[in-house]
């Protein structure tokens, strides 16, 4: 059993690696679709017109080589974990992106947990009171949350909680210049996290609510639920202890399918709240025409998607022993 799991993980990682190579190829093509090359951009900014110098620079970056040669050396560099250099930040792209990864992960994971928790509570409640008032209210709320642009709800929350009520900071990772340490630093970051996390979570909360409601309605029809009721369990007890564990799998699948989607939404949330994550780095890179960095974000976020999908599938197989990895 163990070795089978290991073999499965190995196979998936290999597939993932191939996908990453293909994405790197696409990245390379996109870089080449840009009008002009890095040297042109640099020359334009530094106002250099010395053609001999520009040619020398091209030779140094390998830009005078034929395209397939360039692709090979691009992939070769990638194999050595070299994603290129950001001339804007004067830092290797890999270090730059990895440096921003923890903030994004923190935001994403807390948003998913929040969304899953409330999605479950609301979904179970809606299913228990199907077609009655609580169900209607929850359905209307989730329809609205499902249709709201994530960046806009973020701005509205800033208006309400930062500007009008002044309860929470409107952006940033921690209070600038506060020099906090230990627990007070954690508390400060937590305060800064509340609005971005809620903003990112709302859409997914609505989605999970809908999924949980539907699968709960299905499970609540089954005989074992009636049997549990007959043994004298309360309705709520049956719903949470017996039905929910059987109804939760579709939501977990959804989390796996949507990691990429959440990462994309995080770009917008990070921009709204000046959250120093990968997404904001991507947006900054767009405006500084720093394409090495932009494509580095695309590549590493794809790696993140592949790894998360693998983890979700493993968790899934653990939760449901009927599912065989293979």
């Amino acid at each position: 059993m163990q070795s089978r799991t290991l073999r499965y993980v190995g196979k998936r990682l290999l597939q993932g690696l191939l996908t990453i190579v293909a994405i790197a190829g696409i990245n390379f093509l996109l870089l080449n679709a840009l009008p002009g090359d890095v040297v042109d951009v640099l020359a334009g900014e530094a106002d250099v017109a010395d053609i001999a110098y520009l040619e020398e620079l091209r030779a140094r970056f390998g830009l005078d080589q034929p395209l397939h040669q360039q692709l090979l050396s691009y992939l070769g560099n990638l194999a050595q974990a070299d994603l290129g250099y950001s001339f804007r930040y004067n830092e290797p792209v890999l270090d730059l992106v990895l440096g921003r990864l923890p903030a994004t992960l923190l935001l994403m994971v807390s948003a998913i947990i929040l969304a899953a928790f409330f999605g479950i509570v609301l979904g179970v409640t809606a299913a228990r009171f199907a077609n009655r008032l609580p169900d209607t209210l929850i359905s209307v709320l989730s329809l609205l949350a499902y249709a709201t642009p994530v960046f806009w709800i973020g701005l509205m929350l800033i208006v309400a909680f930062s500007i009008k009520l002044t309860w929470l900071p409107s952006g940033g990772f921690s209070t600038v210049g506060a020099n906090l340490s230990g627990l007070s630093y954690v508390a400060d970051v937590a305060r800064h996290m509340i609005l971005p996390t809620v903003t990112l979570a709302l859409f997914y909360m609505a989605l999970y609510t809908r999924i949980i409601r539907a699968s709960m309605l299905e499970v609540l029809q089954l005989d074992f639920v009636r049997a549990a009721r007959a043994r004298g369990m309360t309705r709520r007890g049956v719903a949470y202890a017996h039905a929910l564990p059987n109804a939760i799998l579709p939501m977990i699948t959804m989390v796996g399918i949507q990691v990429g989607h959440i990462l994309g939404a995080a770009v917008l949330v990070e921009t709204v709240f000046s959250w120093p994550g990968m997404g904001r780095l991507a947006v900054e890179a767009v405006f500084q025409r720093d394409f090495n960095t932009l494509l580095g974000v695309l590549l590493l976020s794809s790696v993140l998607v592949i790894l998360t999908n693998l983890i979700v599938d493993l968790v899934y197989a653990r939760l449901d022993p009927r599912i065989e990895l293979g």
Partner: protein
Amino acid sequence: MLASIPASNSVEPTRSGFWRRFARNRAAVIGLVLVLIVVAMALLAPYLSANGPWDMVQRPYLWPGDAPGFLLGTDTLGRDLFSGLLYGARVSLLIGLVATATAVLIGTAVGAVAGYFGGWTDTILMRLTEIIQTMPPMILAIVIVAVFTPTVTTVMLAIATISWPAIARLVRGETLRLRNTEFVQSCLALGMNDGRIILTQILPNCLAPVVVTASVMVSSAILIEAGLAFLGLSDPDMMSWGLMIATGREALRTAWYIVTIPGLAILFTVLGLNLLGDGLNDALNPRLKER
């Protein structure tokens, strides 16, 4: 029009059956009304407002109701917000519809070919869809628009690029199922060629699920367009709701109505399309009763 599409199997919903089921669904009718309002705004924009969306017509920072003739007030540069709302509806609908239509076209072609021919064709095409689906859609869209400079066309193409794989998978699944049905097998036995079988037998039977998926796709395309515009990645010659939010953002502290109004427009448009999509789903798949 949609009603004439044959259902995926057995019971063929008649025209009146479709409308009856649709009209009985209150949420779907509300969705239809919302969508029709947005369509009317887009079509009648020049007749409903005397000002262009870019014209600086009044004092900046007029709150809604502050000045007669400027129903929703003016933005940071004194531009008429109502006019921006009308012209923004054009951009949202145009990009949402064209991007979705392109995605449906590509996705249907890829899915049908992959599912019908199987083998290597299938493997290669499905690997391609997988590769695209691995990249976070919003980030891929940002990259495409940034690389090819933001215009209406590149935004549409970017959204189509990230959207077609979902359709391709759907159509492939349907095609795989239909390929083994008796009516397709008998067409094969009668010597009908593959192209004709795909076009006359397979695709018409995929239409219902594709229509339902596409209606939801329009709303997500509109959300992505708004997000891109909010990030500054929109056609500089087109007034869009996302752009209005981005410009209003600098005045969030004092004039939050500038951000609120276009956001509500996006919200109601997307809500309308989602309700409409749910309604279509129930009406086109009468046996999948709403749970």
